[in-house]
């Protein structure tokens, strides 16, 4: 390569193309490429990824063909129908409502809320952490006190109180209420990373050349900690599935007419259901376990990809 450069004082177009291609091959691959190769190297992770994506797509599409209000109508004739009988593939609950269809719509609702919650709370947490970590001094101090205050709140109780205050709420309001309380973890992580990042030379160089603070934060620091952001978002998605289902289980999440994996598990609160009619709640419980395990397994793989020393796939 050096020889070539010496021979031609001005580089021809063909050479330029070849050189840039060589440089591209040598450069560190982009983070999405690294993550992808990590999945290709780890077969169980690939299975988990395919499983989760197919499942989400399946419930999203299948629930379009289910008429929810009609499904939620009580049907005394099929009270606690056993699995397999009368066209009830997974049986029916105490109201004669089919479990399988409830499971599909419920999974759609629960996953949808978890996605919404993850998007809102992570975006907020990331902005909070970046701003708090970048501006030291009074801004950081004030933001830290707000953070401390939020950490002190008994979250589940506050959510329950808010849910009872708001008269008519739906999945969207619920997602916003949850988001108020679930950004702290992300913000703490991002803040500590931003603190160390903003001491680096490139930030100082940008500051001296007069770049605006917000441009430095969002165009320079944020891309540099993007792998951390991806990892944290994936892992909090797995956790967030537990948030809505847990509250629905207690009876303060989605209203009764809207099935969720949590309301299905709440069938187990009835001693008759939990002992004799296991099909009313067990499928939902197992589904949550499998979902959470697969998603956080994916998160672990993404985390491994973000840490160059632990990769199984390509390394730089």
């Amino acid at each position, binding site marked *: 390569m050096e020889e070539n450069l010496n021979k031609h004082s001005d580089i021809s177009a063909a050479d330029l193309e070849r050189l840039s291609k060589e440089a591209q091959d040598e450069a560190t691959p982009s983070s999405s490429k690294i993550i992808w190769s990590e999945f290709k190297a780890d077969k169980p992770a690939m299975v988990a990824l395919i499983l989760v994506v197919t499942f989400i797509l399946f419930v999203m599409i299948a629930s379009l063909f289910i008429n929810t209000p009609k499904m939620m109508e009580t049907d005394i004739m099929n009270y606690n129908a056993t699995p397999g009988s009368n066209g009830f593939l997974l049986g029916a609950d105490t109201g004669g409502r089919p479990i399988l269809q409830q499971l599909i719509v419920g999974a759609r609702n629960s996953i949808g809320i978890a996605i919404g919650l993850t998007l809102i709370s992570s975006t907020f947490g990331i902005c909070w952490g970046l701003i708090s970590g970048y501006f030291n001094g009074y801004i950081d101090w004030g933001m830290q*006190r707000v953070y*401390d*205050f939020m*950490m*002190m*709140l*008994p*979250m*589940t*109780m*506050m959510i*329950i*109180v*808010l849910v*009872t*205050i708001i*008269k008519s709420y739906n999945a969207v309001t619920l997602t916003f209420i949850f988001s108020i309380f679930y950004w702290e973890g992300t913000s703490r992580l991002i803040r500590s990373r931003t603190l160390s990042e903003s001491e680096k030379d490139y930030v100082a160089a940008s500051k001296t050349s007069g770049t605006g603070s917000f441009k430095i934060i969002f165009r320079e620091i944020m891309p540099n900690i993007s792998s951390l952001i991806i990892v944290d978002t994936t892992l909090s998605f*797995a*956790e967030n*599935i*537990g948030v809505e*289902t*847990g509250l629905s*289980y*207690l*009876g*303060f999440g989605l209203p009764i007419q809207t099935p969720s994996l949590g309301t299905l*598990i709440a069938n*187990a*609160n009835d*001693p008759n259901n*939990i*002992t004799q009619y*296991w099909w009313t*709640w*067990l499928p939902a*419980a197992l589904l*949550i*376990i499998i979902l*959470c*395990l697969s*998603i*956080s397994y994916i998160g*672990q793989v993404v985390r491994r990809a973000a840490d160059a020393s632990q990769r199984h796939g390509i390394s730089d």
Partner: protein
Amino acid sequence: MWKTILRRILIMIPEIIILSILVFLLAKAMPGDPFTGSINPKADPAQIHHLMKINGLYDPWYQQYWNWVVHLFHGNLGNSYQYQEPVTRLISGRAVNTLWLALFTTVLTYCFALPMGMYAAKHEGKLPDSIIRIYTYVTYCIPFFVILVIGIWIFGYVLGWFPTTGSVSSTANPGFPTIASRLYHILLPGILGALFGTVNIVQYLRSEVIDAKGSDYVRTARSKGVPEKDIYRHHIFRNSLLPIAAFAGYSITGLLNGSLFTETVFSYPGMGLLFINSISYRDYTVITALVLIYGILNLLGTLLSDIILSIVDPRIRIQ
């Protein structure tokens, strides 16, 4: 050191004041009033109006808040509308149950987590380490309430090993049988909580021990000929124990927040179940008191852990 603690406590005061105002306003904003449901349906609206008036529910909020705070400092949190009993007595009766369970779970968690963390660190990178890592990861990512429901189903109903409701058997004789019955009732939720709450302690202890393994004092001990077992037991473990002890504060905080679920699943009459019941009865006085108590306990738990950690590790003292 003392400066740090004092500063932490000073910061706590405004936090508690803001929390109390917030809680008070939220409880006021809850729909319904505590009387309409509790009196028989034929009750005269004028009578309810009168009850509202003598209970001061028509005063402006700051007036009501002020009365509430004054009473609070006299140890009077008002009467529960649902149970017709002073809130302080009601809650203290329930708090004993919740704290018993939390304490028991914390002790068990340490019993499970300490050996696991030590063992994983001792065999770093080998099979036991990976097994323990997978175990902590699996237990961490499953929502706890699902575990509780499946646990009570298998061990409570199907196998019938453990009681499924209450905190003490009604037929137990006073004295030792009562204590035994209490313990029996918290056994299953305690074990489940401990088995599924080890992740923080195990991971922290593991990394502490791995750090210590390469340190000078361990190498000195090893070169003096101290047996490997004693190095772990007396040198490394002692040094790693204090930061681990600090996790007790955080652990209790987490358990309190989980108590809503644990107590609902096991119908265990603690503060969490009391909260859930009070919400459906719009029992403001109990709700405000409970949220406040949980908030303050959260603060104290975190404070305790932070103080222990800052004694152990001067780097994390806040300036």
